[in-house]
């Protein structure tokens, strides 16, 4: 596998500013980052250090103020809004701390949504959504509205939604931040299982125990990387270890 194919995210001199003049806030400052296919990268740091901003830039939710950013072979900093939407739709899956499910759609309809956006027919989208809900253990909750699900179940629906278009990379922003321990166990088991099957993950977290189970841990402060540690040295990390610890403990 050559480098360009193996490398899913390639960022050089990435900068993100908010505001201007005296009110200018530099959220990201000259960040370089490479993420290989199949790798699990955890990003840690205090609130406001720029973790979520980095995730938003990688995910094409926002544009960098300066620097180069390539995701799945496409220059994010040069793409049009429409092309960015296609990138998000086809190559990236998001998992948010606050789930971000559409309250008025059922679990199955929420999962179908990106598939329909991607051009799958209604029957194909339905089949994929049902299969993924089975995979995350929520087949019997497919017709439930998010308000009828627990926090952990909502997050599992969000993970199923993130996977429905078979993305190259899943970006998770504090995926267990709003969950109790039992639900966090479920979600991390699921993410660990997906990573074990080759899914590329970038996880932003406050929890050191989760972070240390990734392949690589990046620490951030004031918009810059201050430390980077390779934890397993391989492309198959052991993200579910934390979940197992929690479960056993």
């Amino acid at each position, binding site marked *: 596998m050559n480098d360009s194919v193996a490398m899913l995210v390639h960022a050089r001199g990435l900068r993100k500013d908010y505001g201007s003049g005296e009110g200018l806030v530099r959220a990201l400052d000259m960040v370089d980052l490479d993420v290989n296919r199949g790798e699990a990268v955890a990003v840690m740091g205090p609130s406001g250090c720029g973790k979520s901003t980095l995730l*938003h830039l990688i995910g094409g939710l926002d544009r960098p103020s300066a620097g180069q950013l390539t995701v799945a072979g496409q220059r994010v900093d040069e793409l049009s809004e429409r092309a960015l939407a296609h990138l998000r*739709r086809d190559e990236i899956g998001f998992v948010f701390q606050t789930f971000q499910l559409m309250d008025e759609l059922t679990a199955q309809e929420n999962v179908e949504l990106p598939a329909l956006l991607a051009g799958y027919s209604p029957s194909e989208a339905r089949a994929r959504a049902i299969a993924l809900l089975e995979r995350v253990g929520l087949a019997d909750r497919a017709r439930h509205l998010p308000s009828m699900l627990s926090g952990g179940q909502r997050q599992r629906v969000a993970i199923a939604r993130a996977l429905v278009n078979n993305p190259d990379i899943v970006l998770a922003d504090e995926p267990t931040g709003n969950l109790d321990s039992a639900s966090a166990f479920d979600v991390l088991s699921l993410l660990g299982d997906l990573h074990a099957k080759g899914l590329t993950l970038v996880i932003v977290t406050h929890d050191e125990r989760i972070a240390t189970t990734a392949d690589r841990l990046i620490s951030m402060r004031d918009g810059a990387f201050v430390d980077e540690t390779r934890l397993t040295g391989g492309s198959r990390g052991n993200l579910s270890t934390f979940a197992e610890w929690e479960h056993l403990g």
Partner: protein
Amino acid sequence: MSPKENLLSQPRRARRAGRVRGRALLLFRLARQDIRHHAAQAVLLVVAIAAATAVLSLAFALNGVKANPYQQTMAATKGPDVVAQSGNDPYTGVTSPADLAALMALNHAQGVTAHSGPYPIVGDTGPVGPILRSTDLVTSVQVEGREPGGAAVDQPEVTDGTWIRPGGVVVERSFAEAANLHLGQVITLNGRPFQVVGFAVTSAFGGFPGTSLIWATEAAARSLATQADPLSYISNLMLSDPSPPAVDAFVNAHSSGNESSPFLTSWTAVAYGDASFLRTDQAFLFTGATLLGLLALASVAVLVGGRLAEGTRRVGLLKATGGTPGLVAATFLAENLFLALVAAAAGLLAGWGAAPLISRPEADLVGTPGAPPLTLAMVVVALGVALAVALASTLVPAIRAARMSTVGALADTARLPKRRGSLIRLSRKLPVPVLFGLRLVARRPRRAIFSAASIAVAVMGLVAALAIHAAVDIKFSHFGRSGGLVDPDVPRAEQVLTAITISLVVLAALTVIFAALATVLDSRRASAVTLALGATPQQVRAGLIMAQIIPALPGAILGLPLGLGLFKVAGRGLSGLPPVLWLVAAVLGTVVVVAALTSIPARIGLRRPIAEMLQAEAT
């Protein structure tokens, strides 16, 4: 093979068909769920647009119904195609034997297949006409002399009582109703007593107030002639070709233009004059439809803006999962255009169904108006107006949603007011409710503008209606009501105007409530923080009310000159101004009503515990 590769491996046509079905399902699903979630707003949107299209459709539909009762009356009375009146001396009004001979010659003109008359008529050429006196009325009338037997052409249809006899007269029904005459009553004509033996209708003359017609025997009619009111004569002619062009051609061919030659009136001219009340109604309806359309525009803009504010997170979510800007705009437009189509259909049916009610024949005609034809033009206009209102009010929010930053939308951040030093200094001196209200207005300036616009349109309609009521009163107090009688067209037109004004006020009130609700919802966190910092619920509630009064007051003040301007344009020649007190009451009353309406959602919105409200935007 990955699902993506699997998708790409399908034939192109199948892929495209699947994509179209998928997108359609997505749009349908999002629209359906949003409508369910915001059912009240959706209903108001439909009602606002339907009200405008209903009034517009009604105005158009009147064209189709107004001829029906006249034609039914014509058939029932063997109505003439042409009514010919003898010429007379321009100074004395006297019909000479030569004038009468000229009239009689028309009875045998080419194209005439039947005729009746000449009949003597008095009061039609003189300055006053015979004076009718009853118990409570003195007025001038026209008296036509007829034979007691039936006539081949224009035999008035007796609707009550019997036909004329010596000493007994028949009164045209619309005049009888206006004069409050009843069967058996004795009246005097130029001092001579006659008994009212019947009421009848005719298609040869327009009804009251154009004419105040009484039929008597020929001898009686002749006896009423005086030097000031000399006799003239009427002939009723039936033509071989009663089509409007043929009748007009006959009239033109036999009209010389000088006063001593017969004066001819076609049935189309009588029918046109008879439908004048509908034209007045139509003019009011078109004006009302324009006002309702403008109000619908402002109301829908407030609603759509409010829903965008509520649905910001949804926009972010749609974009985060791969929705293109075009698709985000399409979801917004599709939903509102669908509702507009529903509203257009509802409005069209309501207007079309109401047309026979508003165009019910007056007392001078018999028969009932049938349903007007549902023309393509009506459908196109109703659809066009509904879609234009929806598009104009949705386009800006849709574009704004499409351009919205995905991260900002997901965070659902409220728009912050621009920080201006002078405003900050000014606000320091303001009481807490005004300060809070001003800040809320600054957060959503577009909503404030549309709220002001909806109030301005409602006050505009209200002031125009007040001005017309006042002008009608002034006119009648100066000139009397047609000799003590009320023109039936006036109360009818006033009823139409009142109905439109009520619709405007109700819609504006609903818009105020929804604007207030939207403000309460998206200021929950600000309200909670203000309460947490020690403001009393009364202060916050007053602030929420101020946020509605701040745009309502200039809106109401602006509506005042706009309403008077509208009255000048659409007042059908009426003049005069309503009392200043009415105008002041309209403006102040509007502000008070806005405050009262806003207090309901403000009270409901502040019922939740502060901690819960603080949490509302955090999850």
